[in-house]
């Protein structure tokens, strides 16, 4: 009996464009436990976002199996998937994906609307989430009235507002200066300490250093999957405690 939170078995993703067949993922096996903190690294076009989308129940693999919490995701219907995306997963998109016509507060409030929370509670939680990413004075700004880094922080606030158990962040610090980037990483670290599972895609070694495990992808395949220094230190500490 396995108790992996996420269990990917032989995941393939093939895009067929006319006569051209493109293998974005070529058989990925990956197990992730609850409360892990993983960094996924790899060159551009290696399939990192594709993998994240599959883990986030946004996309379906061409072949292979995905078990989330022991349940086969490919057997779930649309409504179940929507519910998982809403309640279990907080997704920070590489391209933010904010509603262009809505202000920051409404964007962050959105997952709570679909969760069915009453308005007052929604506003309170959304404001708190924006405060946590340092945007308390930008709540009524629309995305086009925000800087790239601020947009990214709105996207992070939206991903965190529902207190999801799994946080998927596709280059969450790509547009941030070092200081803000560090603050966001601090936030993710705190969440991890509270028990959340965190998967983050990044190009930067410093960012990856925060994770406990680093998975490297190349050409749609896992190239290496190693514990980071931090991860090693943590497991050593655990061993000592035991």
């Amino acid at each position, binding site marked *: 009996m396995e108790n992996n939170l996420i269990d990917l078995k032989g995941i393939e993703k093939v895009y067929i464009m006319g006569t051209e067949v493109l293998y974005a993922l070529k058989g990925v096996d990956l197990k992730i436990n609850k409360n892990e903190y993983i960094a996924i690294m790899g060159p551009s076009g290696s399939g990192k976002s594709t993998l994240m989308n599959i883990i986030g129940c946004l996309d379906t693999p061409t072949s292979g199996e995905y078990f989330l919490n022991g349940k086969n995701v490919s057997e779930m219907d649309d409504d179940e998937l929507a519910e998982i995306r*809403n309640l279990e997963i907080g997704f920070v998109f590489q391209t933010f994906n904010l509603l262009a016509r809505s202000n920051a507060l409404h964007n962050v409030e959105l997952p709570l609307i679909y969760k069915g929370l009453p308005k007052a509670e929604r506003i309170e939680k959304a404001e708190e989430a924006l405060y946590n990413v340092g945007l308390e004075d930008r709540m009524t700004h629309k995305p086009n009235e925000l800087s790239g880094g601020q947009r990214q922080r709105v996207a992070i606030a939206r991903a965190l507002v529902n207190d999801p158990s799994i946080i998927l962040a596709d280059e969450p610090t790509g547009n941030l200066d070092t200081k803000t980037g560090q603050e966001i990483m601090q936030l993710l670290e705190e969440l991890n300490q509270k028990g959340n599972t965190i998967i983050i895609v990044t190009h930067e070694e410093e960012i990856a250093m925060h994770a406990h495990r680093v998975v490297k992808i190349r050409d749609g395949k896992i190239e290496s999957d190693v514990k980071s220094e931090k991860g090693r230190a943590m497991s050593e500490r655990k061993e000592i405690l035991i």
Partner: protein
Amino acid sequence: MPVTELISIAFNTLRNNKIRAMLTLSGIVIGVFSIIAIMTLLNALQAGIEGGLNSLGSNTFQVQKFPAMQFGDAHSRNKFRNREDITYDQGKRLKEKATLYKYMSIEDYVYQKAFKTNKAKTNPNFYVGGVEPEYLECNNKTIQFGRFITQNDLIRNSKVAVIGMDVVEKLFPNVDPIGEDIIIDNSQYKVIGVFQKEGEGFGQSNDNFALLPITTMQQVYGKNNRSMNIAIQAPGKEEFNESVENVVTVLRSIRGDKPGEADSFEIFSNESLIGQVNNFTKYFKYGAGFISFIALLAAGIGIMNIMLVSVTERTKEIGIRKAIGAKSQSVLIQFLIEAVILCELGGIIGIVLGIVTGNLLGMYLNSPVVIPYDWVVIGLVVCSAVGIVFGVYPAYKAAKLNPIDALRYE
């Protein structure tokens, strides 16, 4: 997800696309406007006609050679013209032999007359009537000043007249008309009474007449080639139909109508006249309904088109909503509500404009102000139906989008 949230999302979207929303709903506005305006106008006209007809008096009916309203062709008009006149004697015999009535008044009218005094003259669009004392009851009229024609006046062929308020205003503006003389067709009559003012209906006065004793009338205008109008009041509401039957049977035998043949006279009441009016306006209603149906169909297709464009344009938005947990059903209802709100807004604007326009036109024709509640409800229901029917396909298309494809859409 509660519907109120979806409604507020829909309103926000429409607010962000004001001009497009306006243009889209203008089709609905036109469709609803045309039907509501015509229905309001027809209802106003009908209310006016019914108001006028009600002055015939309650539980009363009339017998005449010609029908009160003719919509037929020349052939059917000839049919009426060839009928034998209803003579005064026939009227008197009907009065004697009919058993089931309360009042009966034999009346004879001459139209297009000018009334004169030594000092003034009316337009030649006044009319004279020869009547009996029962006229008042049978026609629901009231005397304001002086007295009405009596049996005595009939016996003595008195040269007296009871006049309408228009005559007073034209000929006796500054004097008490009672006792004054009035000249009609070179005959002189003494004014003995004045009717209460009735006011206008359909741009026509109801006060431009003078009534004489019918015997006096016959002395002046002759007895031949004249067809009487007989007004009858039934004893009560319950006896109304029996009373009509009784009068018809007796009059048929008096006029020698053979069994199996149609009546050689027309009989009508408020109710039958209102029925005829409805029969006539019905065709306008069908016509307006058809035009509006076409307009709403065109508007519906316009809405579908805009909603499809909107779905394509907002593919990314739909993708975002689904990615963070919107169920297909939420997206479907969101777009459906948007279409229905568009239609309802158009409908409400159309209804308001239609009622205002219809009533303005009606007021111009002296009709009372009406609100066609039934058509308001029908209009709103039809608008919702248009919104749902033409919104369902675009909404379904939006709901079925795959989240990742929608997110990638640029």
